[in-house]
């Protein structure tokens, strides 16, 4: 069963489409990355899932329940960290855990204290005295303390230092391996690449890709540098169709490889080459193309 499922989910803001006919399915125990540039529609999708926004068209469900009608029931088992986190200035971690615990009917003090220790947060510090990163830690603790079945994180690493980012990543992996589902939005490829099993990319409100990272890697082009014995060999070599020549420098040819590396290796073995360099799959370039609104085809 899908933990999250959307069918043709759309949200219109006046004449602008915030989200356009999105079909998403996120399974149990998955870490799902939701990528897109600023303003692409990531937060709109999350707000629709949490029942903050009423869909203009289509439907979204979490645990099989309607996100708009059954929002309060759904949120018993959901932890949410907003992208632009704002907290009450009088709040401390202790107060937050007491209030959230009372609302949820749970005693969150022990779990909260453990998380506070892990994220190195002083539990009696008021929000008005906290730095942005510290507020982010408190937001994470509030979202995580009840060990939700589904965790929705909207750009959770913003404001966190690299050490904390690492701690969060390992905690999310632990959660996922225990069967919890993580829906993770980001505009940074690197954090999604290291964490997620599957990625959807949203651009101008439309989901333009929804694939496993492995599939994306196989689609991503690799940079290949071919070093021929001499310039004449380099000029005379007939390039196969999976290699796209970018530029030539004497006896060196810089290409882009489309598809797997095996055919290249077989082809290279028959060429008068002195060296071959194949880079790892270039996801960065692939995602840049996803983000670039001027490109219609990727």
């Amino acid at each position: 069963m899908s933990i999250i499922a959307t069918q043709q989910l759309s949200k219109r803001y006046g004449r602008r489409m915030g989200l356009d006919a999105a079909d998403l399915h996120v399974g149990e125990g998955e870490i799902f990355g939701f990528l897109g540039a600023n303003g692409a529609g990531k937060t709109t999708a999350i707000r629709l899932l949490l029942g903050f926004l009423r869909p203009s068209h289509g439907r979204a469900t979490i645990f099989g329940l309607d996100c708009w009608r059954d929002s309060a029931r759904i949120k018993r088992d959901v932890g949410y960290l907003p992208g632009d986190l704002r907290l009450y200035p009088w709040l401390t971690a202790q107060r937050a855990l007491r209030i959230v615990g009372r609302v949820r009917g749970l005693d969150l003090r022990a779990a909260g204290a453990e998380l506070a220790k892990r994220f190195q947060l002083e539990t009696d510090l008021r929000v008005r005295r906290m730095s942005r990163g510290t507020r982010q830690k408190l937001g994470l603790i509030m979202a995580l303390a009840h060990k939700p079945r589904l965790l929705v994180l909207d750009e959770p690493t913003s404001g966190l230092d690299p050490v904390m980012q690492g701690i969060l990543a390992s905690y999310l992996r632990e959660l996922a391996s225990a069967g919890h589902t993580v829906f993770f939005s980001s505009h940074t490829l690197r954090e999604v690449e290291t964490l997620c099993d599957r990625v959807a990319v949203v651009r101008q409100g439309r989901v333009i890709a929804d694939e496993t990272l492995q599939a994306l890697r196989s689609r991503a082009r690799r940079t290949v540098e071919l070093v021929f014995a001499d310039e004449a060999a380099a000029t005379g070599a007939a390039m196969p169709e999976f290699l796209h020549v970018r530029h030539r420098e004497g006896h060196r040819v810089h290409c882009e490889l489309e598809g797997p590396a095996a055919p290249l290796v077989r082809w290279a073995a028959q060429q008068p080459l002195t060296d071959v360099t194949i880079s790892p799959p270039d996801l960065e370039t692939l995602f840049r193309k996803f983000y670039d609104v001027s490109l219609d085809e990727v």
Partner: protein
Amino acid sequence: MRGLLTKTLYEIWLPTLLYGLGLLVVKMILTYILPQIHEALGEVLHRLPFAKTFLTILLGNTLGAEISARSMQAFLYVHPVVLALVWAHAVTLCTRVPAAEIDRGTIDVLLSLPVSRRAVYACETIVWLVSGVLVLVMGLAGHLIAAPRMPDELRPELPRILLVMANLYAVYVAVGGIALFVSALSDHRGRAVGVVFAILLASFLLNFIANFWEPARQIAFLGILEYYRPAQTLQHGGFPLRDVTVLIGVGLVTWLAGGEILARRSITTV
């Protein structure tokens, strides 16, 4: 609900205490200086007959040639500072959800909790209604503290004071209901507060103009102060049932409308 109430109480205890203390002090001062005002007012009315119309509007009762001690007692409940404090408390509390929460961006955290919007609204309503009683009681305490210094003929009887306070509480409910309704439609607290105060000002002006201008008299029933006449209540006794019913009715209808709007609207913080 207990968790939500705790969160709301953290936020409103200080403003409620300040409004209550403000009303306590103002009522003490007004009670203390009422005899002096009574003495000076006769001369003012003689020199400025126009002031009599203004006082009639303010007190909600026609004044005779001389202002009576009973009418004078009503000053304690119609003084602009008293009304401003009571209204401001209602508006402060009733524009918190959703307008203020959206405005400062904390609505995301609030609505991420497993509570329905109706539960959030109900919690705000309980706190608003209960804290309103506290503020009015603190005002009454201010009056009672200073009352022993008043001459007997100027000192209102407690049962009649309670009748006026019931009427004032009904005004508080009507103003709060309107504020909740406006807040439910708004994403900015400043705008919501501005709209509510504009409505109250218009209501006040309508009440004033209706005394001079026939067309305004036709629609005077739309003004809130049309249903708040403490001088009459203090003079004749008797529960102002019609006035209280209208005010509570306004409060109830706008409260219900506000709740429905909040439950059905989309919430965006950007």
